[in-house]
Each structure stands twice: as C-alpha cells, then as structure tokens.
C-alpha cells in the first residue's frame, strides 16, 4: 500500500486554482521533496494530505481519507508546519505531558533523551526560547512520535544555517528508517537535495516533473563547458545555459556522461537549477543562448 495516493487532486480558492489535478503516489520509506515557488500549491497539497483543508479528487493517506478522519490519521502522521505553532505560554514539561496524554505513539523517554542533548530547561516557556530552541523542542516532540509519515512544511523557515543543518542531520540520523516516509517542502532546495530520495516540482497547481533522485542523477547532467567546445555543446540542445565566472554551464537531459565529459567538467545539477530550467522554460528551448 502506498503511503500517499492522490488522483486528480484539485482545490480552488475563488478563481485561483491552487491544485489543478495532481496525481501522486508516495511509497513507504521515501523522502519526497515538494519543490516550487510561493503560491505553487505546495502548502495546499500538504494541507490536503494532512486533512487540514477539503479538496476535490481522490486522496488516500495510509488508507484514510484525511479530511474526514484527520484525528485518526494523526495517530500515524506527524507534522511540523513551521516553527511558530508552539504557543508562547507552553512550558517544555507541559508539552511533554500533553502529547504523552493524547498520543498513544509518543515515547516520552525518547523525547526526554532528545531534550537532554539540548539546553532546554523543563520549566522554560516557549516565549522565553529562541526560534532555534523552539524548533529543537518541536522536533524532539515529533521525533518521539512513532509515526509512519512525517510531513514538514517549511520546517526551517526563519532559522539560521546552523540550526537548519542540525535539523536535517537529526532527522536523518535519529529518526528516518525504511519504515517511515517523509514529505518535505522548503525554499532551501540545496539544503535538502542530498537528503531526498524523490522530488516533485510543483508549478501553478500542477506537477511539472517528478522523479527519484537516482533517476535524476542518471538522466540529468550539468557541464561546465570549455569555451572552445561551446558551439558543439549548444548543438546538443541543452535545457538551459547559465554563466558563472566567465564560463558557461549547460544542463543536459538524457545524454551519456562519456559524451558530455568531452565537452567539459560534468557534475550533478542542483535541483534549483533544474527547476528554473523546467518551469521557466516549458517549451524546452535552450535558455540564455545569447552569450
């Protein structure tokens, strides 16, 4: 059984189509990144998956209809919307008591162990904590829940780079295993690129590209082309071309690495560059061919 299965998922706000017929299937043990600009429909998709917003179309999360069974679903799903949802009055000890009181899958001892690694006092209130510390608290709570699906919607928004790194390290090292599934959206695509097993580009409510990372790494390559090979490289119909430090970097799809190696230095492209190439250039015409 797929963890998330959606067919023809649609959602409109007035005349705006936030989700315009999304099909997706997420298997157990994957880490899926939903990537897209603001207003692309990422958060709407996440909210539909979490049962926070009604939708049209077919959607099953762990076999449940999220909208009608949100409370039941939350036994197996954990989510961090962003860091600002822990109320300011909440004490660390109260957060532990409450989650332990209402969640059968919460392992309090594990949460205590995770918190022991931080400088958080049991009696501190959220209002006294820095943004990074609040994230540590929320992450400790969520990681101590034995959930099958973890959804993170911009979980590191507003955090400095040190905490962002810690966040993903903790998630990968102390939490993730093959029985769990993670769906994450973020603006900092580069930071999660090597964390993901799959990604999906969302633009204007549609999925424009979905792939596993292996497939992506096998199919797409970026070449920093030797200046003298540039005309030859351009003839191979690159998806995009950009300039850096006076050299041209071209993005190719579906060409053998050996062939590309003759043109220059081959490396794995960044998802952000691929996104720009895919979305900014739907017709497939090479970009930036002015140079």
């Amino acid at each position: 059984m797929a963890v998330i299965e959606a067919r023809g998922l649609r959602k409109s706000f007035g005349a705006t189509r936030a989700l315009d017929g999304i099909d997706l299937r997420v298997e157990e043990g994957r880490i899926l990144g939903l990537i897209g600009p603001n207003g692309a429909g990422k958060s709407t998709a996440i909210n539909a998956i979490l049962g926070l917003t009604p939708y049209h179309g077919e959607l099953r999360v762990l076999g449940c209809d999220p909208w009608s069974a949100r409370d039941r679903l939350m036994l197996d799903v954990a989510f961090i919307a962003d860091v600002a949802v822990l109320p300011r009055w909440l004490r660390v000890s109260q957060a532990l008591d409450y989650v332990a009181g209402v969640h059968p899958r919460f392992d309090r001892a594990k949460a205590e162990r995770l918190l022991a690694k931080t400088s958080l006092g049991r009696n501190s209130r959220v209002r006294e904590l820095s943004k990074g510390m609040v994230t540590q608290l929320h992450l400790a709570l969520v990681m101590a829940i034995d959930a099958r699906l973890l959804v993170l919607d911009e979980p590191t928004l507003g955090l400095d780079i040190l905490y962002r790194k810690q966040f993903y390290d903790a998630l990968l090292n102390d939490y993730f295993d093959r029985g769990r599934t993670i769906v994450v959206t973020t603006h900092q695509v580069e930071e999660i690129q090597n964390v993901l097993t799959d990604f999906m580009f969302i633009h204007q409510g549609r999925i424009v590209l979905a792939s596993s990372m292996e497939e992506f790494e096998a199919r797409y390559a970026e070449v920093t082309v030797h200046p003298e090979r540039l005309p030859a490289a351009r003839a191979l119909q690159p998806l995009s071309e950009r300039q850096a430090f006076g050299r041209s970097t071209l993005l190719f799809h579906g060409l053998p690495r050996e062939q590309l190696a003759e043109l220059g230095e081959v490396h794995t492209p960044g998802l952000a560059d691929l996104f720009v190439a895919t979305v900014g250039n739907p017709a497939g015409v090479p970009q930036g061919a002015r140079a």
Partner: protein
Amino acid sequence: MTNSSGTNLDGGSRPGGRGAGTEPRNTTAGPADVPDTPGDSHDGGSPAVARALPARQVLYWSVRRELWEHRWLYIAPLVVAGVIVLGSAAGAIRAPAGAALLIMPGALNFAAGALMATYAIVAVIYCLEALYGERRDRSILLWKSLPVSDIGAVLAKAFVALLALPLLTFALTVVTQAVMLLTAGAVLAATGMDAGALWTHLPVLPMWLALLCHLIAVHSLYFAPVYGWLLLVSAWARRAPFLWATLPVAAVLIVEKLVLRTSVFAAMLEDRMAGGRAAIPFPMGNVLARAPTLASVERFLATPGLWIGLAIFAAFLAGAARLRRYQGPI
C-alpha cells in the same frame, strides 16, 4: 495520572518495534490487547492505523491544557475570594460586638454572588477566546497535528465553561464562606460570646447544597446555549469575536422591534439571562434558601426551556466543531 486509563505511555521499549509490516502496532506496554480500548472498530478496516487513547484520557489532558493556557480562569476567582475574605475579616473586627450574627447572612450572600458573577464574566471571556485564540497564535496547527478530533477539542472547552468553572466556583465559595464564618466566630469568641452560634444559627449545609444546585442548574445547564453561541462565534470570527457575538443579537432585537413590532426574542433572551423558570426550583444559593428536594429536581427537569436550550447548545457545539475543521491560523 497519565495512566488513569490503564494505558502505559511511558513504557519505553515497545514490543515488536517497528517495521513489522501490516501488523497493528501497539504502544501499550502491558497486555498487548486492551479489550475495551475505543478504536478497535477501525483496526479491522485499516490494520496499520494505531488505536486512539481512551476518550476520557484525551478529554482529561485537553482540559488540563486549557487550564495551563488560561490561568486567569482560576486566578481571577481566587483574587475575588481573597478580597472578600480580607474585607469580611476587617468588617467583622470593626463591627460592634454581637453584630456578626446580623451581618453574616448578607455577607455570605454577597460572597456567593460576587464569585458567581466572576464565574459568569470569566466564562464569557473564555468561551469567546477558546477557539479564536488558537487560530490567532497559530497553535491550532499544533493541536491539529495530534490525534484529537475537532469535536473533542470543542467538548473540552465546553467542559471547562460548563463543569470545571462552576465546580471551582462552588468549592471556592464554600471555602470563602467557611473562612468568613470562622473569622466571625473568632471575633465573637474574643468578645466572650458563643462562636458556635453562627454555625447553628445559619443553615450552612442546605445553603451549600442549594448553591451547588443553582450553579449547575442555572449557570451551567440553563446558560449552556449562551456559552455554545460564544464558542460558535469564537470558532468563526476572524477578528473581534466579542462584536460578532453581540452585534447580531442586538441586530435581531432591533429588527424584530422595528419590523414586527414584537419582542419575542428579547423576552426569550431576558428569560434565559435571568435564569428564567429554571431558577424557580433552584434559587440562588442564599442563606435563607431551603435545601433543594427531589421535587425541585423533577420540576427543573420538567422545564421545556432547559431541553430546548440544551438542544440549541448541542447544535452550536456541532457547528463550532465543524467550523474548526475548516479553520487554520488567521
């Protein structure tokens, strides 16, 4: 306290661990199957879904959560009680010797009335804040990330207003009045009079029973639709819940008066706010009240307004829960 249901949450190691495929995972560290755990029914349909904790345990923690957040729910009545105790002590000392017997009935009534009024004010503010505040501070996203249903969350809030607060008010009134009687008794004894006279002279126990009945019957059950309305508005309003709660009511009053030239709604409202017929069998717990009898309970239960009000209350709560499902941070 976490284990009131018999479910051990802090059991540490879980038998079986994870990755057991389709086998239902169980976090109870005791016997693997607790037979009366609610949620069994849907295990058959989707075996991977965990069992929910017993509803009463979720309610218990949800109510405690409300009291953590809204500490003024008990601080405000405590302050009022403290002021009354100090004031009555000062009064008892300054009053002429022997006057305590004459002053006490009025003083006790005043204490009960002040605490009851505090309850009403606190409950109104709380209900308006309950489902609005969690959206304003975005914490609704945290609460919704936990396996607590919307109706469960709304019921916990109604429970606070309709049961926790009147019981707190009752306990606090009893303690306040007892302290007042003891202080007055001490003053009497100091002037060489019989301190016990106060307790024998005043029908203390019937008075307290009448107070409890009045609080539950009138302030909780009969006022329930008012609190239900406030919770509904609190779940709906995107700003200024107080105005949204009061202005439509005022509008209906005015329109009815101007257009239909009647005041049915005004009369209904007046009856409801004054305790109406419900208050007849259970008058405010004053010292002269007789203890409520079984007959007064029967009479109260036979009041149609009670049941109509409770039906409206249930509809308002269902509406509030439904609204909460659609609502996110504002």
